[in-house]
C-alpha cells in the first residue's frame, strides 16, 4: 500500500512496549516542524490503539494513517502546529 505523503523522519520503537511508543513518538514530533510527517514503526500491538488515542487527544498532531503488517505496526503522524 502506497502512502501519498512525504515522510520526514522514521522512529523505530520495535521491541519496546507501553508507554514507550507513545512517549517516543511525542518526543520525535517535538523535534519536527509544522507540516512534517513522522513514521513510527512498532511491534507493540497496543500501539495501534495507544497512538490513535494520543493523537486524538493531543493538539498539533494528526494521525494520517496506520498500517498493520505481520508483527509490525506502522503509524504516520503529521505535526500540524
Amino acid at each position, binding site marked *: 500500500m502506497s502512502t501519498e505523503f512525504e515522510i520526514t523522519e522514521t522512529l523505530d520503537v520495535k521491541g519496546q*512496549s507501553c*508507554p*514507550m511508543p507513545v*512517549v517516543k513518538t511525542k518526543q520525535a514530533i517535538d523535534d519536527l516542524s509544522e507540516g512534517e510527517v513522522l513514521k513510527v514503526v512498532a511491534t507493540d500491538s497496543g500501539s495501534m490503539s495507544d497512538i490513535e488515542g494520543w493523537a486524538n487527544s493531543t493538539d498539533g498532531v494528526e494521525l494520517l494513517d496506520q498500517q498493520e503488517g505481520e508483527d509490525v505496526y506502522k503509524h504516520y503522524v503529521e505535526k500540524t502546529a
Partner: protein
Amino acid sequence: MSTDTSPSSADETGEEMADEGSDPAALQARIEALEAQVGEMEDDGQKKMTIIATQGSFDMAYPPLILASTAAAFDWDVVVFHTFWALDILHEENSKNLKLSAVGNPNMPIPNALAALPGMDALATRMMRSKIEENGTATIEELIDLSLDQGVDLQACQMTMELMDYDEDEFYDGVTTDVGAATALEHMADADIQLLV
C-alpha cells in the same frame, strides 16, 4: 416556549449589559469581549493530573510512572506526589533495588508458606525483572528520566522524607522537595484527574 429560562451565567452577563442599554455598538463590543473571554477559556484547556503514590514495591512503582510519562506526552500538567514507601521510587539507590513481595500476593504462583522463606522476595523480583527485560518494558529509571525530561513534577513528601531519614541529595536530580499535603491538595483541586496509587 418561554424565553426567560436562561442559565444563571447569562443572568450575570445580563446585569453587566444593562448599563449599555440597547446601543448596538456597545452591545457589539460586549459580544466581542465575551467571545474573546470564551476563546481564552477554551485555549486554557490543558488537562491536569495529580497522582498520589504511596507504594514502593517493584510492581506498584510502575503504574504511576507509566501514567505520568504518558500524560506528559499528551501535554498535560502532571504532578506525582510521593509519600511513604513511594519515596523509594525517587531515591536513586533504592529505586534500583525495589522488591516484589511474594507473600500475600494471590497472583503469585507460590504458596504463602513457601513465599515466606528467606530469599523468596528476591527470587520473585529477579523473575519479574527478567520478564520485563524480555518484554521490552521500560525500567523504573528510564520512566523516571522520561517523566522528568517531559516536565512531570515528581514531588517527595517532606514529612515522610524526614520520617525515613532521607536527604534530598539521595533523590534523582529534578525531584521537588519541601512540599507537603497542602501542595498536593492545591494541585488536586485544580486537576481533571486525581489518582491514589
